């Protein structure tokens, strides 16, 4: 960080990154479905903040576009879609049954974060971008944690949030490595992701109506009535 030409912005970006990682951990660990949705919204806000900070520092208009798209889709559209499609009962539930209990999944998350740093370090030697040292490892860690969320949880909505957290992680790493990413790529993502959310949300709604539960982790075995 000391070699960076923007010490204050670099520090703020690092802080944002730390909180970003914390929210990713929260999505892995929180029991309440509603709380993990709120954590995801917070995570998207932090992603926006990081994009704005990088946009100011690097003078890139594209990053402001990323920030705007993130705000519009991930903090407004996706939560709204999820609240509309999935019934309110689901958000009141607590996920008691998980594949792993919370302390072990937190410890595994710590291992994943270490792994992210290990993997990111050779890439960091290759790219010469000022903010990659913060954003790349933390973004990769968020990708891993999001994937881990999908593995470890059994409720449909938290699993979807894990998928979205992966997407957030990709963006968090991406805005640092490729600050001049064409807006078309972001727009594509901005359209794709709500569609995914809509489809999974509607599917969850059907599952919930049929079975009265959204613990899709229990749907692995076929059963005849």
């Amino acid at each position, binding site marked *: *960080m000391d070699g960076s030409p923007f*010490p*204050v912005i*670099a*520090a*703020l970006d*690092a*802080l944002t*990154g*730390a*909180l970003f*990682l*914390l929210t990713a*951990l929260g999505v892995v*660990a929180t029991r309440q479905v509603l709380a993990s949705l709120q954590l995801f919204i917070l995570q998207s806000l932090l992603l926006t903040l990081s994009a704005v900070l990088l946009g100011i520092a690097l003078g890139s208009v594209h990053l402001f576009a990323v920030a705007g798209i993130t705000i519009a889709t991930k903090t407004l559209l996706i939560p709204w879609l999820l609240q509309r499609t999935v019934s309110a009962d689901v958000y009141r539930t607590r996920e008691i049954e998980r594949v792993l209990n*919370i*302390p072990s999944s*937190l*410890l595994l*998350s*710590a291992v994943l*974060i*270490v792994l992210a*740093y290990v993997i990111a*370090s050779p890439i960091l030697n290759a790219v010469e971008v000022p903010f990659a*040292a*913060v954003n790349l*490892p933390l973004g990769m860690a968020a990708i891993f944690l999001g994937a881990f969320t999908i593995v470890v949880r059994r409720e449909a909505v938290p699993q979807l949030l894990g998928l979205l957290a992966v997407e957030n992680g990709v963006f968090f790493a991406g805005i640092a490595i490729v600050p001049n990413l064409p807006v078309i790529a972001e727009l594509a993502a901005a359209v794709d992701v709500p569609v995914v959310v809509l489809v999974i949300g509607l599917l969850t709604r059907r599952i919930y109506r049929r079975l009265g539960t959204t613990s899709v982790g229990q749907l692995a075995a076929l059963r005849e009535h």
Partner: protein
Amino acid sequence: MLERIVYNLLQVFVVVAFAPLVEGVVSRLKEILQSKRGPSIFQPYRDIWKLLHKDEIVSEHSSWIFRVAPYVAFTAPVFVALLIPVLTRYPLFFAFMGDMLGGGFVLALGGFVTTLAAVDTANPYGPMGASRTRMVGFLAEPVFIVVFLTVSFVAGSTIPYIVQTRWVTPIANFFEPSHVLLMIAFLMLILAEDGRIPVDSPSGQFELAMIDRSKSLEYSGRGAALMKWAGAMKFFILICIFLNVLVVPWGLAPEDSGLTGVLLAIPFVLLKIFVFVLVLVYIESSLAKLRLFRITEFLGAAFVISVVAMITRLSEI
């Protein structure tokens, strides 16, 4: 040289004198948040005064450990108060007698002796509380170790006076991710270690649910007063370490300000503690007490946060 000894003793005096006040402010604020009036903030002093003038009853089945424990528990925080920065920015006379780990060991000694004393009387609630405290303690231990390791790695020293300047010079260091994560982890530690609400309910009167407080149930008179006072001081010391070393090392007396500077630092430090207590009361009032086996999750989260702080630090962000 002589004046540094005087300041050091003054620092100990501040800890001893104001610790019950902090306790009183916490309980008053909590009551106010619940739309009640609450006891006076000087109530802990009155309690201690009253208990000191009462007869002490000691079970005839207890051993010397039970009798010695209040004195050890009282001395441990007083001793730690010699080592940590409470009022000054520069190291005082006894500062190099022990580092943060040494202070941690001394505090742990106090906890250890009270645990033994709780088991000693064979009152069923004492050993139960003692074993629960141990459970919280050994879950909190790795977090303590990782936090101290990271802090001393960053500062290149384990003396708290040297650590505190590192985070704020230059001010950009304050926002380092490892610093922020360490603050969160240490705050969770304070909540666990002092038996605050997500872990334990400090004002609860129900023996079966108690963790920390049931250890001193058997004490009466002077022993009870010392135990109460010792608990307040331990809390004060933890807040001081948190605020003066990790979070806001401002408002402390600079090197050349003499006695007036040290005296002026007292209201500043109390003000900082008051702000911290506001946050603490907010946390305590907005959360519910965790079930016993959920404490693992709480401290597991603290551990992961501290480990992440260490990783982000070691990889030189």
